[in-house]
């Protein structure tokens, strides 16, 4: 093989691999990404039951019901509210009145069935998605996160801890 042929083989291989990778990426981007939504955005967009998305907002004070490992609460963003059920252990930073991001899908009755609830281990106690969404809707005050930090006594499921 001449130098030129060798180089062409190499470039051909590289292009083939890149094409495969590009195909995989496009395929994966179509199927496995999850959109973020707040309760009012979810209400506007009429998200179909069963379609996965991330729901972000504040845990509505007084809405938390703990029953063993099955919990339910409401996520609110000032505009509207959405009931959420979750089976499992809530993260350490989960409190009423605080920001939360849950991933899952709506069921037929319009309840959001979460399979993961994320509490961001963020020193500002507020997931960025939630903060941005709240800011956009004008429910954000500049000292909000600090106030939340001070009011960490909001109810959680804990009794002894």
């Amino acid at each position, binding site marked *: 093989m001449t130098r030129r042929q*060798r180089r062409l083989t190499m470039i051909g291989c590289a292009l083939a691999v890149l094409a495969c*990778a590009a195909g995989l990426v496009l395929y994966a981007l179509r199927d496995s990404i999850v*959109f*973020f939504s707040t309760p009012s955005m979810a209400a506007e967009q009429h998200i179909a039951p069963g379609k996965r998305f991330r729901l972000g907002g504040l845990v509505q004070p007084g809405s938390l019901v703990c029953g063993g490992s099955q919990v339910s609460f409401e996520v609110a963003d000032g505009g509207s509210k959405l009931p959420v059920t979750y089976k499992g252990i809530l993260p350490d930073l989960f409190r009423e009145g605080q920001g939360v991001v849950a991933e899952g899908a709506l069921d037929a009755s319009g309840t959001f069935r979460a399979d993961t609830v994320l509490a*961001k281990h963020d020193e500002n106690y507020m997931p*960025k998605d939630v903060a941005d969404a709240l800011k956009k809707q004008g429910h954000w005050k500049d000292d909000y996160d600090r106030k939340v930090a001070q009011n960490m006594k909001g109810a959680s499921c*804990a009794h002894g*801890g």
Partner: protein
Amino acid sequence: MIAEAGHYALVLALGLALIQSFVPILGARWSDPALMNVARSTALAQFLFVAGSFAALVMLHVTSDFSVLNVYENSHSLKPLIYKITGVWGNHEGSMLLWVLILALFGGLVAALGNNLPLSLRAHVLAVQAWIAGAFYLFILTTSNPFLRIPNPPIEGRDLNPVLQDIGLAVHPPMLYLGYVGFSIAFSFAIAALIEGRIDAAWARWVRPWTLMAWIFLTLGIAMGSYWAYYELGWGGWWFWDPVENASLMPWLAGTALLHSALVMEKRNALKVWTILLSILTFSLSLLGTFLVRSGVLTSVHAFASDPTRGVFILLILCVFIGGSLSLFAGRASSLKQGGLFAPISREGALVLNNLFLTTACATVFIGTLYPLALEVLTGDKISVGAPFFNLTFAPLFVPVMIAVPFGPMLAWKRGDLLGAAQRLLAAGIAAMIAIAIAWAWARGGSALAPLAIGLAIFVVVGAIVDLIERIGLFRNPLAISLRRATGLPRSAWGTAFAHAGIGIALIGIVCETTWNSEYIGTMKPDEITKLAGYELKLDGLSQRQGPNYRELLAAFTVSLDGKKLSTMTPSKRSFTTRGTSTTEAALLTRGVSQLYISLGDTSADGGITVRIYHKPLVLLIWFGPVLMAFGGVLSLSDRRLRVGAPKPARAQGRLQAAE
């Protein structure tokens, strides 16, 4: 006083960096050795001043001087001493100071150990290091000064985020930074080579050990971070494809590729332009990682800085360095002469294949990490790209790499014999088949992917062993000769075998943990028994305890297997009073390389407690693999070839050794 001294030392370091940025380059232009040697002194002095500045910050944290804002926000007088020290880099300002400390350390090391480098190359390398250092000193001094005072000092601090008060996280950032910043050396050498328009095998001989060292630290740092997430975050996950994790994975992938291409360059003087490009890309990805983590631009578990001025400043640094270096590359790369020829089937060819797949895999991670960001900026849509995306793209690209791994070391340089290599790898292939059959039978059907992946992993591990056996001629020669050949084998050969076996072992752990882990989530009352994976776990009772700066709820479990008591496990939940937050301390019981994992949820009114119990088979292999890889790296680093360096005339030998 200490704070002001620390601040002042940092300003002086900036001044030194500015001098080091242009004086040595002018010296190289005018061929003036005195000017070029300025770089050596300034690099060493810079390190001293930054070290002094860092020591000042440590001192402030240890003595709990709450008149300093950084100490007030991240420390507490009751915090144990070890976390007072590690808390220094548990926050944005302190961790940036650690970043520049390590950068200055590497600069100082090049200055101290680089006596056998051509004078102008050393001058250029140190000047480029000073550009990076200068930019980051400016960043710290203007946007994230850790030495700011509070006019009315409070009596008590706000304490460090409790999840960060952990020994794993104390060691994780320095390791990671040693890796990130270590790649700056390869970057500086690449830029220096482009400025000089000259590059040779000696260049690669210098770059490779530094890259290898950075790679070892990065490997260990990533593994440690992953283990920390596993036991501290309380849900037993060890990799989340979180942007911050990806930020460290990308330089690792590019760095691994660089390690291999530098090998080709050193041995065969080929792939020069590509190696230069990879050096630039690897450090650019490290900078990108710093940007992602430090600017808080992505929603993430770790992103705890969210000041926009900082983000913009780092973005500016990022653009100037990446844009500048790539433009320089575009302008000058064609002037570098092409080196040795090789056939597609050869060790060089295998290493090119490795590079191709590693960089492509790195690119998919890059897209998955930055696509949500780009989309949000362009359309305002918020999406999250999670594990499914990476499993679909990253995994298929990594499979060919794994298949190629055992072949690489078996092929000869220049022109290899694929059939011969395949014959020698027959044993590994057979072992892989047996492993697939056993895994298939043991799992009784189920997913076909898991046994295949285990077979692949076994192929890699056995392939590494076969390579060693071939090299020392075990079974072909008498044992004594084989042993002698084993001791005579270059350490880099051992290093390669260990590192390659390490990936295989990590893969076994990953596959077993994800496929066959079992979990129980539910509420348990005292004296209740839960059965999981053959183990019986009895909740003995709950108790309270007071720690130094937290209150703790402990649950005691008795674990027994087949009616025999094995051990007790005591997971706990800690509430940190100052911040009003709590952390979950999981209890781990190690059986061989498998683990039982218990973490606590909340107590209920009727005296029960929610628990999460996992049985994770072979989970420890996930971290043994990287440790083995790093060990292989250390072996390779201690290879005689790298210690001795380029052949020198007999007279110069004495001085060279003294310099080490």
